[in-house]
């Protein structure tokens, strides 16, 4: 059976060109970049070349890029590091209600240390309101962190405007741009952000290679103690093959972004229009237009997400869901909850995210197999039976 991967929001495959470029640094140039012999120099040179390319992708200066292992680590370094460095000025932090757990839990840790936090709500499309950010900020606010694009519903936030508001009030602005960088144009200067997290595994780079952008002059207190790597902000021996791969993926993303977006948008829109016309009681989640190019997320009424996910997997289609049963904590998605999606409806969450290997044939296949799955699951749903019998939900 053919397998169709539609879970690129969770992680993209590594581009062949990226793999090819990484292999020499696994096999031959294995030296520690801090060593001052030929092996070390070669590795160091490769890292610095990757830093330049990475910086170029987001219009930063290479000296503002710090390599990390993943988006979670970048968010932790930024949130905790900035808060600790600025605590003499204040102790209040503003985040949105739909942030990734690495942001929410970092803030939760800070609250245990005495910081306070305000969670800004979102509208029904998952968009953070500028007015709400303004209202949330107080004189004590030192840091505002709002994600660039949401991986679960695909909504792209008005980061430039929010950053401006935060900066006007004297706060440092961080954005978790893990889902955005490499997929949509991101320019740190135009956006006016002080700090930004990104990850190569979201744009055909390897897992274990990510970065944090810190605008020159942005102070952080590092939470890993060690050597001088990454200017001491993220000590530890560098993941040279991973960083090389991240750089290569960044170069490809910059060169191919427009073509990729065009391809992914066509697939996304075909799936959205196909599913909403073939299935009743299915609703698109996230913003109808301001959304990631390859992202189509829905809630399907009367059935539950994991059952849909397993059924699609049996047909060879790999997707994601934000239903309670797919989370270890058995809680429905905090993103859908913040968007005020009715709790029972949020259980029917299903997320399709396209990548460059996908074709229109894949869309057609999903449109062929998914409606009968919905029909089958609804046949065994007491909620659907009740709806058919009583005409009410």
């Amino acid at each position, binding site marked *: 059976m053919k397998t169709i991967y539609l879970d690129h929001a969770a992680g993209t495959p590594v581009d062949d060109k990226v793999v090819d470029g990484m292999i020499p640094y696994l096999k031959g140039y294995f030296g520690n970049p801090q060593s001052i012999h030929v092996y070390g120099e070669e590795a160091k040179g490769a890292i610095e070349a990757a830093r330049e390319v990475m910086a170029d992708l987001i219009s930063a200066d290479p000296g503002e890029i710090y390599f990390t292992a993943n988006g979670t680590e970048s968010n932790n370094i930024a949130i905790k590091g900035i808060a600790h460095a600025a605590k003499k000025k204040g102790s209040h932090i503003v985040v949105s209600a739909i942030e990734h757990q690495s942001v929410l839990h970092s803030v939760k840790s800070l609250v245990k240390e005495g910081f306070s936090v305000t969670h800004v709500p979102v509208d029904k499309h998952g968009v953070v309101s500028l007015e709400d950010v303004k209202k949330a900020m107080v004189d004590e606010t030192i840091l505002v962190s709002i994600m660039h694009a949401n991986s679960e519903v695909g909504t792209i936030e008005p980061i430039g405007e929010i950053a401006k508001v935060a900066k006007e009030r004297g706060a440092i602005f961080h954005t978790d741009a893990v889902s955005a960088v490499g997929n949509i144009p991101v320019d740190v200067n135009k956006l006016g952000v002080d700090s930004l997290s990104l990850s190569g595994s979201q744009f055909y780079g390897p897992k274990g290679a990510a970065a944090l952008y810190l605008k020159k002059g942005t102070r952080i207190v590092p939470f890993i103690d060690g050597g001088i790597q990454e200017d001491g902000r993220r000590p530890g021996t560098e993941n040279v093959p991973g960083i090389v791969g991240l750089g290569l993926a960044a170069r490809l993303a910059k060169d191919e972004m427009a073509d990729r977006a065009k391809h992914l948008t066509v697939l996304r829109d075909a799936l959205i229009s196909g599913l909403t016309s073939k299935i009743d009681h299915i609703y698109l989640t996230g913003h109808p237009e301001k959304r990631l190019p390859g992202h189509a997320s829905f809630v399907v009424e009367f059935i*539950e997400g*994991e059952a849909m996910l*397993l059924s699609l997997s049996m047909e060879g289609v790999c997707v994601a869901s934000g239903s309670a*049963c797919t989370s*270890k904590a058995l809680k429905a998605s905090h993103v859908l909850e913040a968007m005020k999606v009715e709790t029972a409806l949020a259980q029917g969450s299903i997320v399709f995210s396209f990548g460059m290997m996908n074709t229109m044939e894949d869309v057609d296949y999903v449109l062929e197999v998914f409606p009968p799955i919905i029909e089958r699951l609804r046949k*065994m749903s007491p909620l659907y*039976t009740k709806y058919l019998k009583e005409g009410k939900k």
Partner: protein
Amino acid sequence: MYSEKVMDHFRNPRNVGVLDNADGIGEEGNPVCGDMMTFYIKVKDDRLEDIKFQTFGCGSAIAVSSMISEMAMGKTLDEAMKITNKDVAEELGGLPKNKLHCSNLGADALHRAIENYRKDVKVEPKAKRPEKPADSAAHCHCPYCGEEFDCKDSHVEMCQNRPASE
């Protein structure tokens, strides 16, 4: 994540449907928590002559409902009332620890249908999320965070990850 047997019951659930003239109906869970099961029974000479179920829930919830319907079919009411959550999970070749609550719901829904028949009065569906297996094994797992805790304690009540509405 799931055993072959769980996947078999999920793929081909047995006894799905509604019994129009059911002798007893039992409902457990609610869609807000994520799972809801309704069992319909027909009783003849104190035995379960027919069982049907409907489930709103995950793969585990559907497989549990199907398994219980098979285990209980043809049994006397007393025998069916003795089917425990642990029996169902074991019969399915085990369930992931954070899915054990699905087996609680299934057995409870069947037992509720039998109680409904015996009392010959309508039993109001009770929306709840069970905390402890009926047979009170030494350790339970919190359905919200998956953490193991002593069944005598009320970890679920204390769990910070539980939904605010709970």
